[in-house]
């Protein structure tokens, strides 16, 4: 019997491609964010509401990930923003290889900001590095304030968290106190925003944070 030490990451294939993409994004000076939430939390609607302002200032492109259909990409295309749809045909997350393939369809020349909308899922996308500068998690009021404690991984890996649908707060038992206590304990560095994509409330502060990210080459400005 022989034992051989391997010590090789099982996610190596993804990590290798992510490293390659990260260096490409750095060379081209492109800031990349990876939007993650459960289905229906409002990722696409938040993009619809923020892209007009973002694209007036920057050259922005979007990669849309869904299990099926190109409905989200059609919604983004209406805003005259370049968009590529990835249909995973069942896979629960996007991986770096899918991003690399999607990039073939995008013109990266002069691009400032690439927004990747992951497949709606609060669990699996947390594991796969897409060469983003920041993971941004979105939670909606209707999902309940206990979700950060129940699905902590994504909250600990994200740089920013949007609490969406705050217009529904009066009609729900969502506890802001419990929510903030939990997210601060899970990830003290997490930037939090309260927004309503429906009314537009709070979105400008998130846009300002994104602008800071772009201005700092993907790094957060915490001064």
């Amino acid at each position, binding site marked *: 019997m022989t034992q051989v030490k391997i010590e090789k990451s099982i996610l190596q294939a993804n990590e290798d491609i992510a490293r390659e993409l990260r260096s490409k994004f750095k060379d081209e000076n492109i800031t990349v964010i990876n939007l993650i939430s459960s289905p229906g939390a409002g990722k696409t609607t938040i993009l619809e509401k923020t892209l007009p302002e973002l694209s007036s200032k920057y050259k922005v492109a979007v990669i849309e990930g869904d299990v099926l259909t190109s409905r989200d990409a059609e919604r983004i295309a209406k805003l005259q923003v370049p968009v590529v749809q990835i249909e995973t045909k069942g896979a629960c997350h996007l991986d770096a290889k899918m991003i690399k393939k999607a990039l073939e369809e995008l013109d990266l020349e002069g691009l400032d900001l690439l927004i990747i909308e992951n497949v709606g899922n609060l669990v699996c996308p947390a594991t796969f590095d897409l060469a983003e500068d920041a993971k941004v998690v979105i939670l909606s009021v209707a999902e309940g304030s206990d979700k950060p404690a129940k699905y902590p991984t994504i909250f600990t890996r994200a740089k920013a968290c949007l609490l969406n649908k705050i217009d529904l707060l009066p009609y729900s038992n969502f506890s802001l106190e419990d929510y903030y206590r939990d997210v*601060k304990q899970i990830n003290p560095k997490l930037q939090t925003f309260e927004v309503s994509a429906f009314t537009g409330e709070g979105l400008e502060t998130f846009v300002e944070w994104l602008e800071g990210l772009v201005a700092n080459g993907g790094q957060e400005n915490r001064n």
Partner: protein
Amino acid sequence: MHELALAQSLVEIVCEAAQANNFCKVTTIAVVSGELVGVVPDALEFGFEVLSQDTLAQGAKLEIRQLAATIKCSSCGFEYPWQTYGYLCPQCSKLGGEMIQGNEFYVDYIEGETKEEKENDSG
């Protein structure tokens, strides 16, 4: 649930190493899995069983060692489980610290029979 994709990658790594080391059979595969990777051991084992069919890794025992996500307090240096306390130190109540364990996911080692060993046994 993405264990099938991970199992595919696992089989590839193991078979490549087995070949490079002249194995004719892999008997044990030791995997280290950090809590934050969120791998479900049963699902990984099932995927592995299916995908290792007709490879050098077929029939190998998968030993998955899970590592708890652990925070080291930036103030008092105490190490504690993230699952229970998040980033709030139970010793000094300082919020913050650094995760020192929990993101690992790798093949630690493989065990098996090399071609030479097999020949010596049968000879």
